[in-house]
């Protein structure tokens, strides 16, 4: 019964999207982190989605295969009074772009909703199938 596979497929997508939301939350939380003593500020993270074939048939789920760090240099602000300022008086903040992360969050939440709806539809159809002939 291939309908049952829908739960695996949509479930994998929901799990992947929630992982993406998790990373967005971590990025947004660290949007204003300054560089520590090692001079390295928090780097924005992004998830990498890959298609995962489920079983021998054509069912295609999703999986997060990697979480990559954004290597662009962090934001530098001139603030000599700041305790974390370097010799030139610059403070290095994390390279998180709040706008990008918000867009990412909305996209993840929409995809999450879509997949939940897919599961709900599959559930209704399966329920009706189980009641066949009654």
């Amino acid at each position, binding site marked *: 019964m291939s309908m049952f596979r829908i739960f695996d497929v949509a479930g994998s997508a929901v799990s992947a999207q929630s992982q993406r939301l998790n990373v967005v939350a971590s990025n947004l939380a660290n949007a204003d982190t300054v560089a520590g003593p090692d001079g390295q500020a928090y780097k924005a993270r992004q998830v990498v989605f890959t298609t995962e074939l489920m079983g021998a048939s054509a069912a295609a789920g999703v999986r997060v295969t990697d979480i990559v760090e954004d290597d662009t240099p962090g934001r530098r602000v001139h603030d000599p009074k700041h305790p974390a300022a370097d010799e030139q008086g610059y403070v290095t903040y994390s390279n998180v772009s709040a706008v990008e992360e918000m867009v990412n969050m909305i996209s993840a939440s929409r995809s999450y909703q879509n997949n939940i709806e897919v599961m709900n539809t*599959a559930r209704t159809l399966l329920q009706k199938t189980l009641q*066949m002939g009654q």
Partner: protein
Amino acid sequence: MIHRLTDALNFQTQALALRSERQRLLAGNIANADTPGFQARDFDFASALRDATAAQRAGVPSPVARAEAQLRWSLPAQTNLDGNTVDMDRERAAFAENALKYDASLRFINGSIRTLQDAMRSHSQG
């Protein structure tokens, strides 16, 4: 002799199996809406059903295998920089349409079953 009774159900059964196959395929497309490089797939339901019923007459009853042989890549209406070809609007519409038609096939089957049951009942009462 008994297979005469179920012959009427066979067509809708094939349709139902193909509908559930397509539903799963569309679920996979929706799940991969954000996967870079993913190519959306679908099949032509009418020709798959035609093939399946023809194959059944020849004695090879596996509509799902027929559908998998007919998988096509869908062409995106708007190209995407990451190579993903899932058109969410189209997939959602196809998903809703397919769910409705799955439901319709179920109703047809239920109707046939009820007709058969009625035929049997009236005989025993008469």
